[in-house]
């Protein structure tokens, strides 16, 4: 069965390592914070100027001057720091963030990503996504494998305007864990109960399927 949002977050969380500085995008990526493995510490970077983002505040601790990149009220953890947007993106652009997790509309087998603009629809803007994908050395895209019409989001070539070119190497979809190398998608894991055939059928780009495709370890 396709992974739930929580299971997607669970699988992405397996990419974390102790001591990682991590930037989580809005939506499913945000949920990853709930699945940091026991005994492991990570620090969350919020690109509006906070390293060490904590959980949501209580009514007593809410502070209009302390928000995350999604403009939600948050708290700061022990050892946190505040800085300007220029310093925040210096951090991001300079490759100092260990892992970046974000969503996408489409990813193609060249590692291109489209996530911000659908022609004909009103464009809200790219926010920090272009800086993040162009700069991070370690990016995980998390998204559904196909859109609501059943059309694949893993393409030979993106059809939408790009957010970044040649920058995506890992995808956690609701059906599979996939790596991009040598201009091809490589199927590494499948969601529990999901057949290789379904993944193949729902992947429009070139997919390399090894003999044995293990199931993801999610609960």
């Amino acid at each position, binding site marked *: 069965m396709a992974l739930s949002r929580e299971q997607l977050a669970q699988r992405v969380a397996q990419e974390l390592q102790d001591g990682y500085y991590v930037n989580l995008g809005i939506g499913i990526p945000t949920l990853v914070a709930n699945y940091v493995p026991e005994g492991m510490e990570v620090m969350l970077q919020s690109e509006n100027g906070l390293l060490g983002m904590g959980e*949501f505040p209580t009514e007593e601790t809410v502070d209009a*001057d302390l928000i995350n990149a999604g403009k939600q*009220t948050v708290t700061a953890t022990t050892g946190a720091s*505040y800085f300007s*947007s220029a310093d925040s993106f210096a951090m991001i652009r300079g490759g100092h963030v260990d892992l970046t997790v974000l969503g996408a509309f489409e990813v193609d087998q060249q590692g291109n990503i489209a996530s911000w603009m659908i022609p004909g629809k*009103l464009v809200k803007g790219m926010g*920090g996504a272009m800086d993040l994908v162009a700069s991070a050395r370690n990016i995980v895209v998390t998204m559904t494998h196909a859109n609501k019409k059943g059309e694949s989001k893993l393409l030979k070539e993106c059809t939408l305007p790009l957010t970044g070119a040649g920058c995506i190497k890992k995808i956690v979809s609701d059906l599979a864990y996939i790596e991009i190398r040598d201009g091809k998608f490589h199927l590494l894991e499948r969601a529990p109960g999901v057949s290789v055939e379904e993944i193949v059928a729902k992947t429009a780009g070139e997919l390399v399927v090894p003999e044995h495709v293990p199931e993801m370890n999610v609960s």
Partner: protein
Amino acid sequence: MSGFNKVVTSYDEALEGLSDNMTVIVGGFGLCGIPEGLIGKMKSLGVTGLTCVSNNAGVDGFGLGLLLEDKQIKKMIASYVGENALFEQQLLSGELEVELTPQGTLAEKMRAGGAGIPAFFTPAGYGTPVADGKEAREFDGKMHILESSIVGDFALVKAWKSDTMGNLVFRKTARNFNPMAATAGKVTVVEVEEIVAAGELDPNEIHTPGIYVNRVIKGSFEKRIEQLTLKK
């Protein structure tokens, strides 16, 4: 009065010289850390044809959204807009022009504007519509595009504290774009929660030295929260 006393006591003085068709850089991220009173004054002054440079365009009825009501903004340079029905309307009707800029590039453009760096290469936006018409160049095996700096006729900044000499301290994530904005205005006006005497701020902990600041005004702030999210 010393030549370094930057304090003004009225919004009229604070925005003296602001006129139609100017480029105005405004600090803030969403509704966090915005110079509320200065924006309100821009509205009541009725200046039009403005190019506003700010990460976002406020919401209906608050922040830069207020300036949309009377169509004061001609062009918006931002990374993320559209929290705002009025914005959408004016964009679709062609009354408003938008130049969408990656957030880190926008921050760096302001910083560069204040720092005398006219242009810099960044990887952000290469291969995307943002790169259209811009010079692209490879460094160290990776493609980058050339982006140019931004300087504003005015920069409107929100800080936590200022001393009378315009030395600034920001608070938590209300810092955001404000320090760069402060450096990038031909005239930089800062609205603060508290003004203290010169010497009260620790010189080691000043975020923005007073050299960048022309005028300081004590404001009062609603500090509206855009997305109140509480622990369950």
